[in-house]
């Protein structure tokens, strides 16, 4: 039985067009993009075409795109690259960032920078006013994600950009969960740096890009050849990036129609869940969200067990966070939104994508309702007519 996949925020299957571009790059136009000869030129042509496609998706100039090994490297390059130019300076980020940003900031804290981690409200939103108040004379960078990976909640980047622009502080946007789901125009956002990842938009794993606004100074993470305008040494992963370019073209072409389709599917899914499963509630429902993401709390259900039960039934979903061993930990995002620990442990993320359709979601709904009922039936605290015991205590 092929599994039904509802975890597109973790990774997406490769688009056939991306694979076709990669296949050609591996077997026909292979080469080192730095070589002088024709094979090198062929590879260079693929690389620059990919750069144009990614630039197009983001509203950037091709020369402003630095290719990386993924979203994590793009985030590190942005944050460490700016911080390195301001030794011991101050950084502002939020409590709900992806570990790629959060742990980079924590490491910099260890090394002598100071970091402000802004809170979010109950809907998971950062406030631009909080950003303004956090700024100090020595603030080097503000880093805020475009859309949260666990809840899909979209942050007010334009308002935040107005604050950083007025203060002449660099702004980095982790757009890994935004790219391909939301229209992005870096000119309109007026950010200085913006990260994307290939495998979240049907490109290959191991590819990513950082938009670096023209004129932005940035210290590289490591040293070697003169690749990527001296910002990222190392022979480019041309086949992977050709795949990323193809995926970016496809994402740009399908963005509007796919967003509308997924919004409708997702909203219909949520209505059905709320109508059939007692006490279920949608996290971040009052905030703008990306079209494909639904995070739902099922009180009195251990999220970890629910993920396993659904997997055994053939449905791939996820809880927010896993530690290095793969065990589930209460999500720092949900805790920051004010959920008590026991509720943060009861939330599941469903993230839909190109392969999702209503018959598949109907099957998920049936399995979900059955699993929740079974897990609750054996849960000591579960009494349908009463509030959770923990909530009263």
């Amino acid at each position, binding site marked *: 039985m092929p599994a039904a996949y509802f975890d597109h925020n973790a990774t997406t299957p490769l688009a056939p067009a991306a694979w076709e571009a990669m296949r050609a790059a591996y077997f026909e136009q292979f080469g080192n993009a730095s070589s002088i000869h024709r094979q090198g030129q062929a590879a260079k042509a693929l690389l620059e075409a990919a750069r144009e496609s990614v630039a197009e998706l983001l509203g950037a100039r091709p020369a402003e795109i630095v290719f990386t090994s993924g979203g994590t490297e793009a985030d590190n390059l942005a944050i460490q690259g700016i911080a390195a130019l301001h030794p011991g300076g101050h950084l502002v980020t939020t409590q709900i960032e992806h570990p790629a940003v959060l742990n980079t900031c924590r490491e910099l804290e260890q090394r002598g920078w100071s970091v402000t981690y802004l809170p979010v409200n109950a809907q998971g939103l950062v406030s631009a006013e909080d950003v303004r108040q956090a700024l100090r004379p020595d603030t080097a960078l503000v880093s805020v994600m475009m859309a949260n990976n666990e809840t899909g909640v979209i942050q007010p980047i334009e308002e935040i950009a107005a604050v950083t622009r007025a203060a002449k502080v660099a702004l980095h946007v982790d757009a890994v969960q935004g790219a391909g789901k939301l229209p992005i125009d870096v000119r309109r956002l007026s950010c200085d740096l913006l990260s994307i990842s290939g495998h979240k938009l049907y490109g290959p794993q191991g590819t990513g890009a950082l938009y670096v606004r023209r004129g932005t100074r940035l210290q590289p993470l490591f040293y070697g050849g003169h690749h990527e305008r001296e910002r990222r040494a190392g022979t480019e992963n041309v086949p992977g990036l050709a795949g990323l370019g193809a995926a970016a073209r496809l994402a740009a072409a399908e963005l509007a129609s796919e967003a509308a389709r997924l919004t409708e599917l997702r909203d219909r899914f949520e209505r059905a869940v709320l109508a059939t499963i007692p006490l279920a509630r949608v996290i971040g429902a009052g905030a703008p969200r990306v079209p494909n993401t639904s995070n739902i709390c099922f009180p009195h259900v*251990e999220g970890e067990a629910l993920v396993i039960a659904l997997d*055994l039934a053939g449905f791939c979903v996820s809880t927010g966070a896993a530690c290095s061993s*793969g065990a589930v930990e209460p999500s720092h995002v949900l805790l920051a939104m004010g959920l008590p620990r026991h509720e943060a442990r009861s939330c599941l993320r469903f993230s839909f994508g190109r392969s999702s359709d209503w018959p598949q979601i109907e099957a998920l709904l049936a399995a979900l309702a059955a699993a929740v009922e079974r897990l609750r039936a*054996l849960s000591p605290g579960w009494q349908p007519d009463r509030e959770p015991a923990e909530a009263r205590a």
Partner: protein
Amino acid sequence: MSGAITVIAMSGGVDSSTAAALLHAQGEPLVGMTMQLWNQRRLAGLPGMPQPARGRCCSLEDVHDARRVAEQLGIPHYVVNYEESFERDVVAAFAAEYRAGRTPVPCSRCNTHVKFAAFAATARRLGATRIATGHYARVSRDPAGNRYELRRAVDAAKDQTYFLWGLTQEQLAVACFPLGEKHKREVRALAAGLGLRVADKPDSHEICFVPGTDYAAFLDAYAAERGEDPEPGGELVSTDGRVLGRHRGVHHFTVGQRKGLGIAAGRPLYVLRIEAKTRRVVVGQDAELLHRTLVARGAHWIAGAPPSAPVRVEARIRNRHAPAPAWAEPLPGGGLRVVFDQPQRAITPGQAVVLYQEDLVLGGAWIDAAA
């Protein structure tokens, strides 16, 4: 997958891996789960703790091994998080016992409070009708078929019933120990024959969440992390009350200990008892460690009710102790008195006394004092 399944707790070691392979070979619908119990990085770098973190419990290598064995068998595998329950029910209790001058048995509490409690509950919610582990022990039914019995493993050297005496009838009803009839060398041979990648992995003996063997350093780091005051030191005294020296906290000692007392004497001195209230550690001669009687509390009788009269048993007072003939007498309020035929050395408060008749485990209790 639907219908009845067996969940096997897979640590990544040779025993649970082989147990999984045996059940799988029998055609059991099987799901492997590895418990994440303790984060070794938590106390890394605190005084006395290794930096970077080292340890056995829930190491990434063990989880990796468990996952690879499950892949090899073709069974689903999940890592499940019981860190909160493990800390509350096992680690915190371990620390409290040492502070109270006792020497705890964390593996017993882990089996009864985590593995066959929270973990088993999750497994049952997922549809499991049996919870399997790689323990060396056996479960049987009594002749009338009314009750479950716990019995020693065929391999006496590997028998782990000392850590399983707390299991209830409900827990035994779902417990499955595929290795109970096997000898360790058979298990290793089976693992090798199946090509299991863990066939040569060394056995683990120490307490899983303590890096190395320095329990006191672990307890100091754990207290520091929780913002608790360090253990106050106290006096080392002779049986007649003479002060022989000072010590750095009662948690450095266990009954029968000879090393690390820090006092020079003509003859070897041993810890005879630990008086937590006065912080005094009483030391004396080897012969003074011998006692015929112990009293214990929190008695658990596997058959359900305590016997109405003293019973003839063989009693084991620590894991590596050869069970010795004794009379066991239930006391009111869940107490137990055990009178051995011959004096036993270093009866240690905090350890369990486990009662056997032949290979049958009657139950056990927590040792309070030698008398």
